């Protein structure tokens, strides 16, 4: 029932429910002060959409103002580096807005003045190809999500030493008909956080969407991890947007050198 190391008593979780539920509830019961603090924090949470150049607030629905047929979202520094060097390098992309948020887990204490440099998410649209943001109804929109995860989160019955990291796995909604460029994510692996939220939203609203998840052993910005996303460049969404691959590789290398964080812990 309980394991001890250094005299510590550890309660093992039980799926059938604990016998001591009543005792635990007493300890966990919220005081009115706790509830008030929680309410105040909830009021302070906010998500704001800005136009960075003019610092004006945008109307809530960005997609209604700029309806689009292809929506690509990159989450995590490697996915963002891939998108900036390979996709946004070709053609002129115009920033249409950025989203900033504050909740009690953010490190900034100043809620009233979110500075422009702390954008959580920046939205761009392709200037030269307005049909990418044409007046098509939402139904015809296709969503591509790119993200990374550490390979130690990958559960497999194979030996982990035989895995060739980094590798891509895909997860798609029911309405997405194109074949993915890598194998699908097997059970019991799951997707977490924002990519999962976006994919679930697309599944519920029947929007064709595909998530490409790169399992890597280097979570910081790394050339080999970013290049693992290259098969995605042949997809219908991205093929027309990518023009100059050798130039993109050069841009990526520059991005690496400017972003190198000096850490002397590991040599």
């Amino acid at each position, binding site marked *: 029932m309980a*394991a001890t*190391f*250094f005299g510590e008593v*550890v309660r*093992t979780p039980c799926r059938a429910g604990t016998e001591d539920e009543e005792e635990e509830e007493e300890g966990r019961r919220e005081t009115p002060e706790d509830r008030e603090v929680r309410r105040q924090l909830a009021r302070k949470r906010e998500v704001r959409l800005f136009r960075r150049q003019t610092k004006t607030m945008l109307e809530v629905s960005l997609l209604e103002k700029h309806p689009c047929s292809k929506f690509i979202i990159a989450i995590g520094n490697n996915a963002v580096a891939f998108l900036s060097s390979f996709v946004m390098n070709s053609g002129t992309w115009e920033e249409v807005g950025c989203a900033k948020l504050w909740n009690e887990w953010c490190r900034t204490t100043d809620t009233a003045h979110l500075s422009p440099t702390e954008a959580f998410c920046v939205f761009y649209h392709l200037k030269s190809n307005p049909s990418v943001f044409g007046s098509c109804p939402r139904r015809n929109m296709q969503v591509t999500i790119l993200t990374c995860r550490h390979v*130690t989160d990958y559960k497999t019955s194979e030996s982990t*030493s035989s895995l*060739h*990291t980094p590798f891509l796995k895909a997860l798609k909604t029911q309405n997405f008909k194109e074949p993915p460029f890598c194998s699908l994510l097997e059970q019991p692996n799951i997707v977490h956080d924002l990519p999962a939220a976006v994919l679930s939203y697309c599944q519920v609203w029947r929007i064709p969407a595909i998530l490409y998840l790169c399992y890597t*052993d*280097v979570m910081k910005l790394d*050339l*080999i991890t970013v290049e693992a996303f290259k098969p995605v460049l042949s997809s219908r969404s991205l093929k027309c947007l990518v023009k100059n691959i050798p130039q993109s590789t050069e841009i990526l*290398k520059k991005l*690496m*050198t400017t972003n*190198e964080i*000096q850490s*002397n*812990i*590991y*040599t």
Partner: protein
Amino acid sequence: MASRYDRAITVFSPDGHLFQVEYAQEAVKKGSTAVGIRGTNIVVLGVEKKSVAKLQDERTVRKICALDDHVCMAFAGLTADARVVINKARVECQSHKLTVEDPVTVEYITRFIATLKQKYTQSNGRRPFGISALIVGFDDDGIPRLYQTDPSGTYHAWKANAIGRSAKTVREFLEKNYTEDAIAHDNEAIKLAIRALLEVVQSGGKNIELAIIRRNQPLKMFSAKEIELQVNEIEKEKEEAEKKKSKKTT
């Protein structure tokens, strides 16, 4: 399950894992790549140099260290842990020489380092060393040796091996390209080490450091110019090989 059995080094999980040791092996993968090759008459150690900050003195950021005149090692992982292990190994080398009046064999000093690492996987209140090491040198009998140790305290002799980030890619390259011909000549062994590193090093020859030991000769560290020369030769050979290929296809 891992979260209940991974906080203490002295606790096995029900399926026999020592999670702290396995996590230490992850720490090794955070270090830059090091490759070791055992030739017929030479041993080579190549490492990917980390880029040094502008105001930092380059000499203090070394991945290849001499343990004695005839033994040297390269490591990957936590810098501070490596410093402690190297200091202990150096003291042991001298102590051995004074006691037994013979220099250590490569196997002896490797076993010493591995035993030290193993002790830290069985001690209460201590964590394992987060480094893997490649130890090379020549014994008195003139035979070249290459050993690899890891945080669990195991050590093995290798013909060629790599540790650190992207070690798997480098090892696969070595498995394909390590032949008796390739290592028969010293220069070929050196080129093999550089070619293996170029597979994974992000900015080419500028970020490679190389050290060799030849039979009955002390450790030699290659200068940046010498490495550049080797890299240029390798690139020329590549181009010629590609030209030959394209001629064959046309």
